[in-house]
C-alpha cells in the first residue's frame, strides 16, 4: 500500500469538502463539525463519502465507509481518522 501522510489525507478531505459545499478549502479545520459548522446535510455527506471512496480506492483496496460507521462521521477529523485507520490496516 502506498504511503500517505495524515496531512495529505486532511488536504484531500478538505478538497472534496470544498468542491461539494462550494467553500474555500483553506478555511476548513479538523475540529469543525460537518453538519453544523460546514453546513453539510445528508446529501452532501453522501457526496463526500462517495467521492472519498473513489479517491482512496486506488491506494486502499476495496476502501469503503461502512454504513454502520457513517453516523460516527461528525467532524472533519472523524473522516480523516477513518481513512488513516484504513491506510494502516
Amino acid at each position, binding site marked *: 500500500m502506498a504511503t500517505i501522510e495524515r496531512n495529505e489525507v486532511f488536504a484531500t478531505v478538505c478538497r472534496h469538502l470544498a468542491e461539494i459545499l*462550494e467553500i474555500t478549502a483553506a478555511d476548513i479545520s479538523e475540529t469543525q463539525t460537518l453538519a453544523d459548522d460546514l453546513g453539510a446535510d445528508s*446529501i452532501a455527506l*453522501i*457526496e463526500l463519502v*462517495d467521492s472519498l471512496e473513489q479517491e482512496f480506492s486506488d491506494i486502499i483496496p476495496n476502501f469503503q465507509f461502512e454504513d454502520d460507521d457513517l453516523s460516527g462521521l461528525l467532524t472533519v477529523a472523524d473522516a480523516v481518522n477513518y481513512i488513516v485507520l484504513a491506510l494502516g490496516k
Partner: protein
Amino acid sequence: MLPIAVDAMGGDNAPSAILAGALEAAALGIPLLLVGPEGLEGIDDLPLLVASEVIEMDDDPAQSVRRKRDSTLVRAAEAVRDGKASAMISAGNTGATMASALLRMGRISGVARPAIATPVPVPGGHPTVLLDAGANAEVQPEWLVQFALMGSVYSERRFGVENPRVGLLSIGEEPGKGDTLRKETYELLKVAPGINFIGNVEGRDLMTGVVDVVVTDGFTGNVVLKTLEGSLRTVVKALFTAFGQPEYADAANTLMPALLPLYETLDPDTYGGAILLGVDGVCIISHGSSSARAMVNGIKCAQEMVETGMVEAIRVAISSTLAE
C-alpha cells in the same frame, strides 16, 4: 453528437421494452450507447458498454450506487461524466438514477439541489412543468426559487414557452395561504430576478394552461403527479368500458377519432419521462413501467435537451442569479 447512454437493464419491462425502444430510436438516426451485461442479446449492431451489475427497483438508492460500482446505472452516468455519452436515460430505480447522476456527473455550480421536472399534459396546449416531482422530500425556500429558475429554462427550451409563468403550488391563490415554507418562498419568488412569478396556484390549475411552471417540494410534487396519473387512468378506463357496451358502439365509432389524439396527449409515454435538472449532464428518468414507445420518446427528449444546450442554459441562469 455523442451517443445517448441507455440503461438497458432499468425498469419493469427491461431489457425487452428498453431494447425495442432503443432500436426504434436508433433507426431514426439517434446515436446510442447501450449499457448492459456482456452478451446482451437483441441489440443488433448497437454499441454496448459492458456493466456486470444491476441496481434493482427496491435497492437503497445511495447505498446501491456506492456498492454496485459496475452497475448499468452507474456506468451510464460515468459515460456522460467521462465524455463518452452526451446524456443518459434509465427506466430503473428513480432514487438510484438520481443518486448516480448526482454522484457521478455532479451538480452544476451554485445549484443547491437537483430537482425532477415532469411535463404534465394540458389538452390543447403545451405541458405544464411540475418540479420537484420527487427528488427532495424536504426543501428550503431558496431551493424552490432555484427550482423555479431551472423549470423556467426547461419550459423555454423544451416547449418553446417565452417568459414562462411560474406558480407556487399552495392551498389557495392568496399570498398568505399555505404553510411557513410556502409563505417564505412566496416572498422570495416575488422579488427573484429572471422568474415570471404569477403567485400561488392550486392543484386544479396544473392541467389548464394558466401556468407554465409549478414549483413545490418533492414530497408534494410526487403525490400530485401520482394522483393525476391514477385519476387519468381511471377516467380513461371508465370511458373505454362505457364505449365497449354494444348500445354505445355507434357513438364510440363517432367519438373515437376525436378521443384518441386526446388520449395520446394525456398518456405519460408521450413525453418519455422526467428530467433531472441541476446536475452537470442530461439525465432522463423514465417511468419504471416504460414501454418501448416511452423509451423512444425519452431518448428523443434526451437528444433535444442535448441539442438545445439545456445544461449550459441552466448553468448560465444559475450563475447570473448568483452574480446579482
